[in-house]
């Protein structure tokens, strides 16, 4: 339960971090470390070098008409506390309160969680549901990756090895839209056995869009369009496109039942909010 040896670099500029990352194919970036350090301690990861980006700034939450930008070093707890972020996109605070325990949220970063690409985590699914983006930088420049193109497989993002995620962008919640998120976990703060976030948009008294994002169900966070599906059938409809996994925490059939129940609940909650 101790990490294997590694070199340690704490750069003071992003360029320095990117140079070092490009020079070592086995280097890893350390931000909050709340997922990475357990992996090191359990020796599930043994990088040759850790590049600690905590000295780089990148800790701003910035607002624009179209949404909120979150720097790579913004801690979950800081984003959760931000009243402005909760106003621009209320689903952020609601989902962040489900991320582990407050003590973990004090150190863990939202962007780090997003690029860690754990299909059991809340924030990757929220980013996918809302159609957010992640901006990454490398020595050769920067690019923006849409959430739908971010996840390649379990614990695998589409970032290249030499890229560092510098910020995530969550779009503003549009008028007439309601959102909700719920999960079932054995204890509050544990990873969910199944979690669902939903976004419902109404216009002229009619639902014009209903979508749900699933975490801890499949190998990657998965968004399903449920527009036009009666809410009683929505879970079953979603299951046709999902492949719930069995693991030591829950069987696939139990997860399927949670999908049915949670889908109905979050769609109802999001719908109520949209009509409110």
């Amino acid at each position, binding site marked *: 339960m101790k990490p294997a040896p590694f070199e340690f670099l704490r750069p003071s500029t992003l360029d320095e971090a990117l140079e070092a990352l490009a020079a070592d194919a086995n280097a890893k970036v350390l931000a909050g470390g*709340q997922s990475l350090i357990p992996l090191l301690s359990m020796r599930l990861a043994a990088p040759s070098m850790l590049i600690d980006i905590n000295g780089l700034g990148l800790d701003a939450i910035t607002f624009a008409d179209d949404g909120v930008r979150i720097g790579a070093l913004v801690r979950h707890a800081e984003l959760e506390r931000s009243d402005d972020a909760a106003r621009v996109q209320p689903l952020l605070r609601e989902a962040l309160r489900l991320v582990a325990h407050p003590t973990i949220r004090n150190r863990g970063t939202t962007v780090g969680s997003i690029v860690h690409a754990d299909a059991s985590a809340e924030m990757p699914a929220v980013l996918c549901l809302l159609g957010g983006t992640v901006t990454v930088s490398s020595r050769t420049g920067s690019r923006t990756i849409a959430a739908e193109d971010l996840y390649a497989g379990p614990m695998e993002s589409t970032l290249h090895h030499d890229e560092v995620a510098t910020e995530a962008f969550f779009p503003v919640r549009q008028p007439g839209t309601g959102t909700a998120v719920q999960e079932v976990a054995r204890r*509050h703060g544990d990873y969910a056995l199944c979690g669902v976030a939903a976004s419902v948009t109404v216009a002229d008294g009619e639902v014009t869009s209903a979508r749900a994002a699933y975490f801890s169900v499949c190998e990657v966070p998965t968004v399903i369009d449920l527009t036009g599906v009666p809410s009683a059938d929505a879970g079953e409809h979603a299951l046709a496109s999902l492949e719930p996994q069995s693991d030591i925490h829950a069987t696939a059939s139990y997860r399927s039942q949670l999908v049915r129940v949670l889908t109905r609940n979050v769609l109802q909650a999001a719908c109520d909010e949209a009509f409110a």
Partner: protein
Amino acid sequence: MKIRLHVNGALHEVDVEPRRLLSDALRHDLRLTGTHVGCEHGVCGACTVLVDGEPMRSCLMLAVSATDYEITTVEGLAQDGELSNVQAAFKECHGLQCGFCTPGFLTTITAGLRDNPSPTREEARDMIAGNLCRCTGYQNIVAAVLKAAES
């Protein structure tokens, strides 16, 4: 690596490998063995310390990443030999038995009551939800949180 750690108001210079967890640096290099190490992957909460006043898992931080912060361990809670309110409430309410988890509870609750000085019973339970105790059944720890809030 030679690093400086600010712990309980004192500056310590230590020479550690980069892989040294903060929890191990506190215990082995600084001999501050009040911080306990349970699960070593962030679940049990026994190693919780205050980092610039905020509770964090010392097993989920590297010592070499902790140099910019003021760290408070359980040894830093009592002032001039006087137990802090939270410590005194634990003593009075029998909020501990074996004591292994206690340092993490004390640091977590110290910060929790600073942010919410008069919690409801439900809020008190929520405050300690990230810490595991195998002896007490939590009832006396919840009572200690409420007792400390009164004093």
